[in-house]
């Protein structure tokens, strides 16, 4: 595993966040994402597991975390990168990992992140959704439900307005 870490470090500017038994967490610049993922695939990280997006309104950033598994060396690579919150653009990895396309489509719908190069970013779960992307931290889903679906004056719906 040390070997894999140093291989990535020798080619790219990465910050090692932590290394565990069989996990590597790295932080990279979002410009390097495509190059690093191509290199990671070459050295055995073939199984794309998932893509998580975390929203940080106070820091005005969004964090993207790509989880990729290496079956040969039994190592999980977690690539972390940051993008600006008001301009959430990043390159798509769908050319490198085909299944990344659908993960990016989901992230686009729920967080509003735009992936340049992704062939299909159409709606996935939410039909005719006109509001802000619902998984952003400043979208309060409870307020949304109260506003749109419940009536404060109805006896059996009053309880939803308690907190």
């Amino acid at each position, binding site marked *: 595993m040390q070997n894999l870490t140093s291989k990535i470090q020798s080619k790219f500017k990465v910050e090692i966040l932590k290394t565990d038994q069989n996990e590597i967490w790295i932080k990279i610049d979002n410009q390097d994402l495509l190059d690093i993922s191509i290199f990671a695939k070459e050295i055995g990280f073939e199984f794309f597991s998932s893509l998580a997006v975390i929203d940080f309104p106070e820091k005005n950033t969004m964090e993207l975390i790509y989880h990729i598994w290496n079956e040969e060396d039994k190592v999980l690579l977690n690539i972390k990168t940051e993008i600006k919150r008001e301009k959430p653009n990043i390159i798509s990895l769908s050319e490198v990992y085909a299944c990344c396309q659908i993960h990016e489509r989901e992230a686009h719908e729920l967080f509003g992140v735009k992936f340049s190069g992704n062939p299909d970013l159409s709606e996935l779960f939410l039909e005719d959704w006109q509001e802000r992307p619902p*998984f952003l931290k400043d979208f309060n889903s409870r307020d949304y439900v109260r506003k749109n679906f419940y009536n404060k004056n109805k006896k059996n719906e009053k309880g939803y307005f308690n907190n």
Partner: protein
Amino acid sequence: MADSSNKKEFQDFLFGPAHPGSGNFSVRAKLDGERIIEAKSDPGYLHRGFEKLMEYRNIWQNAVLSDRICVFEPLAWNMLFAQGIEKLANIEISERAKTVRVILAELSRLQSHLIWFGAFSMASGFDTGFKIAFAYRDYILDIFSAITGARVYPTGYVCPGGLMRDIPNGIEKEISKVLQKTKQGFSYFKKEDPLFKSRTKGIGILKPEDAINMGATGQVLRASGVSCDIRKSAPYEVYQKVDFDSPVLQDGDSYSRFRLGLLEADQSIKIIEQLLNKIPSGEYLNKKMSPAMPFIIPNNEVYVRNETARGEGAMHIKGNGKENPYRVKIKGPSFTHLITILEFLLKDAEIADIPIIYWSLNGCPADMDR
């Protein structure tokens, strides 16, 4: 007339969400006669936004909520959430809890495979198979009822820190009785039915390189000849102490996915039999953990992966020093199986093969939509 012969008109075809073989899920296909030109998965009928719901709740509420991620195997998702919190906060759990968790996870896999075979039989026109599978599944549900208190949804029985309650006395005997019944149930599906074979053999072939690239996991990946099992490659709980195989088949068609399920079920029975009489004594729940006590999730993040019955289930949990998690990302195996891979396999297939290919992937719309 001359114009229309040049320009072919394709028919639109909807499979689901009201089709008995589809579940809460639909496929929009473009047809040229009987052949599918293009298929688009249309998920979202079960989207409940668990990831967002979990941000508003503490870990004990989330443990209960995590049942509902997948309807077919709630215990596996229960365990995944519990493991995430344990890894995040470095909570030790006893050997007893670990062993019971593995037994429950494997029982959960067995009943999930029974549902799968039942639905698969129904989708291919063998109604009897459906009834056999669901009848034998009920024996396992009785065990769940005795241990967790509920037949299907365990309401957070596998919780952060171990288990909510201890297992009842003498349950080992009951489980071994049920295993005999389960073996009998699976024996019906092991009969090589020529009609079923002719419907599934050579249908929906997924090559190994496509399987890896499109994010196949679990039996879909292993039926395509790629050996990859999280229980083997990154063992959790007590899997490293158990002797079992992770079967691999080479053909990658619907038939080998089905056969692989049967082989896996044998291994699950083998795992449970090994552990059953060796459940160590000890506490079932870590003393520091109690649902009555508020629990602060440390400012850290983890990614946990499990081999659930359908493939790789994973959770990314981020805490920020509060009772509620800051963000939970749930990755269900059906997400790539039922969208990327299903769309790929349905291309150039025939209408009658849609249910066969769909059910051979062992998908669950609930864990896809979340």
